[in-house]
């Protein structure tokens, strides 16, 4: 097809060949961009190591699913669809933008492989994409400026709103697509005026509209529009490129690598220092994060990648009950700090100390490590490891809340947070009828299965009932099992997650020895926190299973049989414990077990179940912590169950039981709502021959 207008590669303005601008703008843009990126890499180079280059195929798969596939976006349908449109448009238009840059240097340039039909198909595709991007931008502007969804709001203590940034970027994108439309549209209009065949014009696309709007314009105006649109596109494009690393739109560049380099092992906690084994920990000068550069380079990449979309905080239970924690602002505050300390020009601004000014102690202790934030983040930013790392630093400096010092001291001395005697660890079995004689493994007795009880089930009056129910169910299933008794120590799950790594290692080593000594071939536990610890934090021990899975297997095999539901008028709902669900993907087994009770009526807390379950308030040491909060997470959770129409909350975690039962009492819902553990529910419905 023949061109009518003079292309930017050949045009002259005031006697100057415009090709000069076509060369200068990209060169200057790329140079500035490279300089900015180099400076952004500086703190990452200074940061601590991180091991992220294993299992490359898994990483590629994750990148395809979460980055290219935008897998998590539809969890928020409105914003999700807009983003997917913008992203798809961006991917398609990237080629066009590169072509345009080169068109300004070499007239009629075509990217290799883009000639002929492929090129024509692409041009159609990019016109459609550009149009959709334009519509998406307008929709996004409408959301940002008119609807103003609550999750974008910035509480005053976290600084100012970033709406201007979002709006500016939306305008830049709008500018980019409309410039291309005007650039092409003016050429098409000129061709139409001359009666020359144009390229393919898809009706209703932006280019089509531009061409039709310009058909009657005089030729010299068309030429001005053609060149003007081209260089506007050029300027916007390179300004946008250099603007990306200035704030939240850095994610355009970092999200693919961030997803590729993301954490692969759910439920685990990063080592104190990558590359330093447990034995060498004593030689480390310092533990955890005390200064910004104590984060790993990947964690700094996380800060860069945060889009400030607020999905994490929208799902954070701590944020929901008014605790001083909003995961989104951990990323945003650290990024702002990073940009100020490593500025592009001018003086470095540092605030000292980092902990206390940028991140606050109460903020860091407020997290229950429930994982709701990480479950939601579209670019897989990690929070738990960072929070644990900051806690490690606080513990190392002795900055542990008073409420946690007693239980930690007791764990050190007695192996449980209550400070109870070791020899009383198996006393919960005393109230079992005589026929249930529970073996204490290790010294004289052995068994196929070890029932790992953990501290709360061993010592808490109420939770001991769950232990006894578990024992009865295991007996009924015909499982040859025993317990460690006085040799058992706390699993240390929260000890590690509260940053007291050395104490955790001590507990782990003692338990590991006792578990090996027991001679058991497998481990079963009714405590998801113990389950997670044994499954992910311990090494070289027999396989561990949560009792919900054990029960389901034995229901399927017929070893366990259940009678019809005791009270068919009650409506049950299942509360997913964080460490069973989100951290270990065990969502279906407990539900199938409940549904195996004939005649039971179970409802879901729609929208707040499975991986969007709402934390009950946290387990282990979190029971001792006295947070600043407006209400209890458990109360919010009980409300959700009530709203779902349930009057019995079934859970599968001793800590959930404590928190939910407390919440029922403090909400004045006694008699109206009740809580029961899955194991207790099963035990009550056992058919015993």
């Amino acid at each position, binding site marked *: 097809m023949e061109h009518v207008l003079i292309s930017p590669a050949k045009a002259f303005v005031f006697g100057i060949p415009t090709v000069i601008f076509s060369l200068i703008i990209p060169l200057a843009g790329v140079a500035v961009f490279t300089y900015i990126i180099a400076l952004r890499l500086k703190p990452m180079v200074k940061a601590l190591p991180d091991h992220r280059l294993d299992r490359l195929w898994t990483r590629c798969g994750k990148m395809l699913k979460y980055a290219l596939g935008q897998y998590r976006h539809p969890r928020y349908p409105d914003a999700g669809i807009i983003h997917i449109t913008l992203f798809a448009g961006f991917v398609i238009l990237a080629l066009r933008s590169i072509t345009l840059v080169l068109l300004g240097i070499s007239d009629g340039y075509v990217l290799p492989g883009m000639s002929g039909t492929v090129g024509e198909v692409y041009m159609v595709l990019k016109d459609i994409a550009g149009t959709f991007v334009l519509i998406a931008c307008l929709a996004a502007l409408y959301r940002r400026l008119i609807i103003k969804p609550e999750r974008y709001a910035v509480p005053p203590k976290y600084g100012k709103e970033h709406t201007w940034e979002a709006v500016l970027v939306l305008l830049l994108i709008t500018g980019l697509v409309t410039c291309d439309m005007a650039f092409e549209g003016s050429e098409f209009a000129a061709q139409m005026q001359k009666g020359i065949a144009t390229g393919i014009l898809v009706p209703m696309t932006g280019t089509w509209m531009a061409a039709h709007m310009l058909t009657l314009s005089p030729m010299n105006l068309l030429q001005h529009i053609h060149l003007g649109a081209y260089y506007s596109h050029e300027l916007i494009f390179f300004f946008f490129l250099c603007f990306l690393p200035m704030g939240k739109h850095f994610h355009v560049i970092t999200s693919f690598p961030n997803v590729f380099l993301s954490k692969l092992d759910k439920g685990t906690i990063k080592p104190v220092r990558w590359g330093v084994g447990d034995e060498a*920990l*004593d030689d480390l000068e310092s*533990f955890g994060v005390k200064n910004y550069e104590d984060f790993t380079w990947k964690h700094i990449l996380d800060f860069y990648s945060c889009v400030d979309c607020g999905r994490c905080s929208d799902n954070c239970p701590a944020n929901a009950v008014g605790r001083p924690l909003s995961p989104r602002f951990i990323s945003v505050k650290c990024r702002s700090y990073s940009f100020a300390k490593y500025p592009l020009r001018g003086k470095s601004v540092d605030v000292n100390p980092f902990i206390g000014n940028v991140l606050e102690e109460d903020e860091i202790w407020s997290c229950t490590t429930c994982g709701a934030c990480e479950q939601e983040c579209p670019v897989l930013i990690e929070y738990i490891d960072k929070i644990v790392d900051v806690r490690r630093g606080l*513990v*190392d*400096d*002795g*900055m*542990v809340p*008073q409420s*946690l*010092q*007693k239980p*930690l*001291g*007791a764990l*050190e*001395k*007695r192996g449980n947070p209550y*400070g109870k*005697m*070791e*020899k009383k660890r198996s006393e919960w079995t005393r109230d079992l009828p005589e026929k249930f004689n529970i073996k204490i493994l290790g010294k004289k007795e052995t068994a196929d299965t070890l029932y790992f009880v953990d501290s709360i089930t061993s010592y808490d*009056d*109420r939770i001991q009932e769950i232990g006894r129910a578990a024992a009865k169910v295991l007996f009924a299933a015909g499982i040859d099992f025993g317990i460690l008794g006085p040799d058992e120590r706390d699993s240390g799950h929260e000890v590690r997650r509260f940053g*007291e*790594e*050395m*104490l955790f290692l*001590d507990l782990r080593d003692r338990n590991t020895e006792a578990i090996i000594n027991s001679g058991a071939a497998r481990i079963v536990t009714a405590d998801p926190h113990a389950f997670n610890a044994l499954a992910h934090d311990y090494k070289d021990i027999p396989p561990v299973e949560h009792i919900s899975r054990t029960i389901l297997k034995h229901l399927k095999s017929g070893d366990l049989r259940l009678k019809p539901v005791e009270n068919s008028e009650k409506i049950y709902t299942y509360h997913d414990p964080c460490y069973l669900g989100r951290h270990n993907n065990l969502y279906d087994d407990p539900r199938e077990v409940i549904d195996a009770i004939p005649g039971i009526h179970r409802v879901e807390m729609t929208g707040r179940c499975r991986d969007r379950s709402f934390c009950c308030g946290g387990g282990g040491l979190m029971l001792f912590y006295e947070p600043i909060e407006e209400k209890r997470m458990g109360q919010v959770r009980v409300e959700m169950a009530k709203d779902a129409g349930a009057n019995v909350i079934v859970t599968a975690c001793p800590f959930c039981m404590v928190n939910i039962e407390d919440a029922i009492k403090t909400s004045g819902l006694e008699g109206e709502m009740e809580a029961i553990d899955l194991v207790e529910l099963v035990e009550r419905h056992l058919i015993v021959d």
Partner: protein
Amino acid sequence: MEILVCIKRVPDTSENEIEVNRDGTDIERDDLVYSVNEWDNYAVEEAIQIRDKVGGSVTVVTVGDEEGEEVVRREMAMGADHGILLSDEAFSGSDGKGIAAVLKAEVEKGNYDLILTGAQADDGSGQVGGMLAAMLDRPYASLVNLIEIVDEKTIKVGREIAGGNQEMNEIDLPCVLSIQTGINEPRYVGIRGIRKVASLEIPVHTAEDLGISADVVGESAARTKRLDYFVAEPGEGAEILEGSTDEIIDKLIELLKAKGGIK
């Protein structure tokens, strides 16, 4: 400022079930776990904070057998610069005055501006601080919950009086203070902290080192003698609720309601 903090190793009341033994001579000591006396821990924290503010050093000292080293080390992990263990067969069975005499001998070997003790110990009777001050003939303030350093010669100390009101006193250095809990928030000491100071030398001073003659310390010199430990009988009108925690709470609420304590 040179600060000496006197500390004591005691059975941890929050992690033990304290029971009187059968013949009433002592508490059951099997299965006990020990820690530094809570008041002393606050005193050490206060000393460390003062040192960090005005400079100087903090020394912790305890009178006891070799197991006393454990608590000295723990307080060194907390941040004390030096630790001393005062240990001798001759010291065993000392009463408060005997312990104060041992401490006095150690104080006189050094050059301390400020001597802190806990206001009392979990297993003690709150005598040592006052006696030590008297023996040293130094000014003494007890139950201190606030310290302000004025200059090298003077400090201000606060004490809580009835109704939650605060009393402030000025006191000249060198002096002795007994420290109340709540004066600060003691920092946490983890296993890692203790391991870091595991190899530090803790000198042991005996009666001979201190120049103490056997007749002022030990059981023979004690002028108070412990006669018996027993569990008090419920008096008239007293009732001990029994059962599980929940049952006890239910009964208590019932009682409070019945007696008009709550509505």
